[in-house]
């Protein structure tokens, strides 16, 4: 049986923020974070993700890992909407410091159940100050 079928409904939803600050390859952090998010999504909590520092590279489009012999797992971020993870905060300053623009990021969307399944962007560009506010609202922050 898959685990999510037997979870007790505790009723107290917490706000979880997964913080991603490292480049996608070279260490296992980015992939581990993504897997924890997907597994944790079964627990019916309020989950969002933040990308800053080198973490913004995790969701850059057209990744090609053929030269480093690792699996390109970046398409999996586009499945997050299916797992009801619909808010990916990306820090503007981190993009600018790396010469990136929002156009360099993958198109990641979710379907809004409350709006006739309209497709909406999951990525939310925020300033460093706005991201601090998002972090201050959380019950749990997991940093990778």
């Amino acid at each position, binding site marked *: 049986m*898959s685990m999510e079928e037997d979870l007790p409904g505790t009723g107290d939803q917490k706000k979880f923020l997964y913080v991603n600050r490292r480049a996608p390859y070279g260490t296992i952090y980015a992939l581990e974070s993504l897997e924890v998010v997907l597994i944790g999504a079964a627990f019916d909590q309020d989950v969002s993700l933040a990308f800053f520092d080198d973490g913004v590279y995790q969701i850059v489009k057209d990744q090609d890992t053929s030269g480093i012999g690792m699996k390109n797992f970046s398409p999996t971020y586009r*499945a997050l909407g299916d797992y009801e993870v619909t808010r990916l905060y990306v820090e503007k300053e981190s993009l600018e410091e790396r010469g990136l623009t929002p156009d360099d990021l993958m198109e990641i969307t979710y379907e809004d159940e409350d709006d006739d399944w309209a497709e909406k962007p999951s990525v939310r560009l925020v300033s460093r100050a706005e991201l601090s506010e998002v972090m201050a609202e959380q019950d749990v922050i997991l940093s990778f």
Partner: protein
Amino acid sequence: MPYQMNGTTVEHDEEGYIEELDKWSKELAEIIAQDENIDMTEEHWEVVNFLRDYYEEYQIAPAVRVLIKSIKKSMGKEKGNNKYLYTLFPYGPAKQACKIAGLPKPTGCV
């Protein structure tokens, strides 16, 4: 015991998931299904093919509730429901169908 097919063998882990995804073929799927006591019908293939497409696009095997929701969206609610999918794959549509589809165990299943 590895799966035996036309004189070749395909290795799998202790739960029966194949280790090299590119070794998969329709013939191998039939052999894995036999091991699972499943007679592959058109309805089974529809789910297996759906999972392979999902993996191709997102590089993951979806958790069961995501699979059910996605099938409901693309094939309608008479197929996208627990009862229909568990009838086809009694030991879990995600787990068992992923095994037959030659994919890794779904992320989030224990």
